[in-house]
């Protein structure tokens, strides 16, 4: 599919209307955000991007997305805390969460799983990996 939206991402609402697949991306690295936004939009997603950890839970609750992509180290609040809070909220217990992190150590992974992260991906990742993960998670959520 060909996108007609520009880099500023001002027309994301159009995406929602067209596709109905909606992802919230919480990442403080603007260029990663931009690359992922581009990739997912090409894949038919509407993307809401947000940088601040402190208000992330609110943003996710309001957006009510099909999927969340979350960085581990965020200003304001860590990705792990955000996931824990999401899991305690009503109605978001099954929301698929893909966590991105620059530290791929075993301990981080265990902690992320314990907090309720659905899938874990270490930076630097390839675009294909991100797309595959997002598609898998969406498909699984659809079945469940």
């Amino acid at each position, binding site marked *: 599919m060909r996108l007609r939206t520009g880099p500023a991402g001002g027309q994301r609402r159009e995406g929602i209307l067209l596709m109905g697949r909606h992802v919230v991306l919480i990442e403080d690295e603007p260029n*990663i955000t931009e690359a992922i936004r581009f990739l997912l939009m090409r894949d038919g997603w509407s993307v809401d991007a947000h940088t601040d950890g402190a208000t992330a839970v609110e943003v996710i609750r309001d957006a009510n997305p099909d999927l969340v992509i979350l960085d581990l180290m965020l200003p304001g609040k860590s990705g792990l805390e955000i996931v824990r809070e999401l899991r305690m909220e009503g109605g978001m217990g099954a929301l698929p969460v893909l966590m991105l992190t620059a530290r791929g150590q075993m301990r981080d992974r265990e902690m992320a799983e314990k907090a309720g992260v659905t899938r874990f991906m270490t930076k630097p990742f390839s675009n294909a990996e991100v797309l595959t993960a997002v598609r898998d998670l969406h498909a699984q959520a659809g079945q469940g």
Partner: protein
Amino acid sequence: MARDTLTGSRIRERRLILGMRQAELARATGISASYLNLIEHNRRRIGGKLLVDIAGVLGVEPSMLSEGAEAALISTLREAAADSGVPVAELDRVDEFAGRFPGWAEVLATGHRRIATLERTVETLSDRLTHDPNLAASVHEVLSTAAAIRSTASILAETGELEPEWRDRFHKNLNEDSLRLSESSRALVNFLDEGDTSDDRRGMPQEEAEVFFQENGFHFPALEDGSAGAEQLIQTAPALTSPAARSLAQAALTQYQADARAMPLHALEEEIQAKGVAPVAIARRFACGLSAVLRRLAALPEEVLGQEAGLVVCDASGTLLFRKPVTGFAMPRFGASCPLWPLYTALVHPNVPVRRNVLQQGRNAAAFDCMAVAWPQEMPDFGADPMYRAVMLILPGAKDAEDPQLVGASCRICPRQGCPARREPSILKEEF
């Protein structure tokens, strides 16, 4: 310390190693068992022909019994055996080894200490990778930028048709990120370099500071007469290469200076000549804390104090911050010490002076007069938990050592059986 007072202990150890009963040895040397018992408990002096006879029956050189081998050396050899991980058949002959081949024993002990230092360095470095927030942030920055570059570059490379606005945008991002990556990776390299080139050559900062103190015999005349300050001494010390060691040594010297001002050398010398080594009397005379007195006494030259003196200082975690070794009292090089040290008794009873005669477990069972006290490191404030440190002065040759308290150095090399304070199993199976 008069080593010959321990001849009896050595005879006893040697006899027990051979599994010989007191009566047997007494009979073989033509003395009564009760007399031998007195000798073995160091209540009778022994020398001359009897010593030669006993040594003959026990199969050792007489000098091994009268002089023994250096306790610290033996303790290090035991540690080396413990850490080697291979079953050492001749652990019971470590004394003999150190006595007969002191040079080789020293080589082995030095090698072992070096290994311990290196292991510690490795531990520190790996700790640093895991826990150093600056390093973690630095690595995070590099990896995040790499992730952004990788994603952006593959979009540019793999997407067939790309709108010019997106393409320009991604090119710009790529340019920014590559610049950031080169900066953050340079910062990372600098960060790693700075730590490794000078600091870790010699080992841990604390070791460097210890070497510095040892080279000076733990006494600094320039600080006594005020002819130089702590900073000057630090700057001119070749032993102190790393900034961390310099700051450790500076803290210790600053404390030294304050203690020396409170208790000037000459006045203190007179006080000791008049009343002996009486810390509480000294504290009263100079109106200072007992902790300062104990530190000060350990900083005096042996001829002023009239005897050797060791000192240990720990913080509230029990970690030894400062060590002045004393002959015969083994202090573990790394890791935790024996929790039975009066130092720790003092730590859990802040401000209460603790004085104990202790007998350190081991071949050369020697009694020490230990005086300890814990003091608040800073003036405690309302609403803040006080931070305590404890200090222990270790004087060899406890006088009334009738009922000494048994302590060890560290669990791994301590032979004491059924010890309630044991933290980990000992490598020593024998009972002494």
